[in-house]
């Protein structure tokens, strides 16, 4: 079951975080490196920053929230095997964090922003279900950014 589940998943990388010019939110751009298809996910300002910090590998003087989460997991010997953007309903995205604890896999419900911030800090792969990609995936980053009315890619992938 787990095997067939994985087949329907597409691996994405975090390409960048851009500010949405229309709202105070930020947009995380996930990208399928094979097809160049992108998946934009709107996140709050704090969550966007947490992802940017992880992308830039920027050390902060004190541990940020996701650093604490990773640190707790390291102490307890839990590893993030993967995170999956599982669903989108009424513009709300759902994700799950897959944990490995002593050979047993456990799944925890999360917002994609938290899942991505954690995945980047634990070097874990990010996947998306075929369903979400079909519904929300876009073809090219350039076309999409033009539609959005910004060229302001503040972080590169």
């Amino acid at each position, binding site marked *: 079951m787990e095997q067939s589940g994985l087949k329907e998943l597409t691996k994405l990388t975090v390409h960048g975080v851009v500010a949405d010019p229309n709202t105070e939110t930020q947009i995380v751009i996930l990208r399928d490196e094979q097809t160049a298809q992108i998946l934009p996910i709107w996140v*709050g300002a*704090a*969550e966007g920053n*947490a992802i940017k910090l992880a992308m830039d590998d920027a050390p902060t*003087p*004190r*541990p*940020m*929230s*996701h650093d*604490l*989460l990773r*640190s*707790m*997991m390291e*102490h*307890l010997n*839990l590893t993030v095997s993967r995170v999956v953007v599982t669903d989108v309903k009424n513009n*709300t995205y*759902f994700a799950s*964090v897959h*944990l490995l*604890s002593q050979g047993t896999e*456990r799944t*925890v*419900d*999360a*917002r994609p922003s*938290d899942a991505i911030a*954690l995945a980047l800090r634990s070097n874990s792969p990010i996947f998306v279900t075929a369903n979400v990609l079909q519904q929300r995936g876009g073809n090219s980053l350039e076309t999409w950014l033009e539609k959005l009315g910004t060229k302001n890619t503040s972080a590169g992938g």
Partner: protein
Amino acid sequence: MIAQMKVHGLMFDPYNNTFIVILRDEEQSEMLPIWVGKPEASSISFALEEVTTPRPMTHDLMKAVLDVVGAKVISVVISDLKDNTYYAKVHLMYEDSEYSIDARPSDAIALALRTKAPIFANEEVIRKQASDELDQWLENLKPEDFGKYEA
């Protein structure tokens, strides 16, 4: 050596454009204000008001991760104050072992409120912050500046 603290309130600091979590000890004789950022303040406020958000916030995820493996937050301790930065420890119990993890007080408090874990402060930290300047600053605040969370 160590005092148990309760979250007495949460207020906006208009001078610094940040939020302050007010911790008080049981006898209400000591007060420890801790400056926190906006997202951390929202997270603490959700926990104080027992608001359930449609989706899990970051500290809810922390709790969920601990819950799913059966780890428990025993306590959090505001452990030190150096150069205006507060330090905290989250004490976890997992499979009969205890772990002590470095954290910002804001994260520690947000997690403690969600897991019903006690919050402690080293008395040295309370002494260090008890400068005249700060007392004066707090005295100048009007009661309505304080949040509505009466402990």
